[in-house]
């Protein structure tokens, strides 16, 4: 359960963030300069690899109880953020993330910026746009890789899951040469939110000294229970705010 859950959570989280980063890179590449955009991608990925490589061994050296308390708490806060946004989107109260709209907005912005050469970078704007896109979208994934991996003492498996997702999304992007608008981002974020919340509760409580009935088997109850509870909240919000579904999202914009 734990290893497969680790792989699924990291893979899905990474795939979602990679889809969002791909949209930014495509806008920088097609709208401006591919060489600078790809250089930005390379530098962004290199920084993320350095963060994981530097913090990974340090995290695994922390006593398991303390690690689970801190990481469990952070995962729970993170998971609740993901779940909250996914539930609001599923119930129509927040705009669904539209990659095509984001791509068009980015494309309009990149055309307006002036061209500036710095060192080996022929277009500084394309470079920084791609670099920041990859780094910022990837930071959350690096956090999930580190926390899940360190808790399971299996950072390599978490890294493989993240890498698989990046390669898959990159291949799809290269093949389609367009934003991956058909990817069910909200459903994926929903699943990641459920996983992070469940594991956050489990590890956080263990780190704080609680003992779960059935030990690790408690996760087999926690994960479906959080999923069902979240689906029930979607149904409740749809019933309480039916106008949000008929008139579109109310007072919201496409967020992360």
């Amino acid at each position: 359960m734990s290893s497969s859950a680790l792989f699924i959570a990291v893979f899905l989280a990474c795939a979602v963030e990679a889809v969002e980063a791909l949209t930014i890179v495509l806008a920088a590449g097609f709208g401006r300069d591919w060489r600078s955009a790809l250089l930005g991608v390379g530098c962004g990925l290199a920084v993320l690899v350095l963060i994981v490589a530097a913090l990974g061994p340090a995290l695994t050296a922390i006593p398991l109880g303390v690690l689970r308390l801190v990481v469990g708490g952070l995962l729970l806060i993170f998971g609740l953020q993901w779940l909250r946004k996914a539930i609001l989107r599923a119930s129509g109260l927040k705009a669904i993330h539209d990659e095509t709209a984001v791509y068009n907005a980015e494309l309009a912005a990149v055309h307006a910026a002036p061209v500036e050469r710095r060192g080996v970078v022929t277009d500084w704007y394309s470079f920084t746009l791609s670099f920041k896109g990859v780094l910022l979208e990837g930071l959350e994934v690096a956090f999930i890789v580190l926390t899940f991996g360190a808790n399971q003492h299996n950072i390599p498996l978490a890294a493989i899951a993240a890498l698989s997702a990046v390669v898959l999304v990159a291949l799809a992007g290269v093949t389609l040469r367009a934003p991956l608008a058909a990817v069910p981002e909200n459903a994926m974020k929903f699943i990641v939110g459920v996983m992070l919340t469940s594991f956050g509760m489990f590890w956080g409580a263990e780190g704080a000294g609680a003992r779960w009935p059935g030990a690790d088997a408690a996760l087999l109850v926690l994960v479906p229970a959080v999923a069902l509870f979240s689906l029930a909240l979607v149904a409740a919000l749809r019933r309480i705010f039916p106008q949000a579904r008929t008139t579109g999202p109310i007072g919201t914009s496409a967020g992360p």
Partner: protein
Amino acid sequence: MGDRIKAFLRFWYDFIVGDDWRVAVAVVAALALTYAVSRTSFPAWPILPATVAILLPASLWRAAGSSKSKTR
């Protein structure tokens, strides 16, 4: 320089705490309560699930309410 430090701190605040700071505060308080109860003979494991069961609907309700009021 001051603006850069502010932007840096703002980034980490948004990254860790997110849209609803009450969620972060409640999670920390629930972990502290779990620790305190785990020192006694009472079971401490239900505290976090109960916190999530209250916290998530409350946070969603606030978000839904503020979204609705923006349209008025």
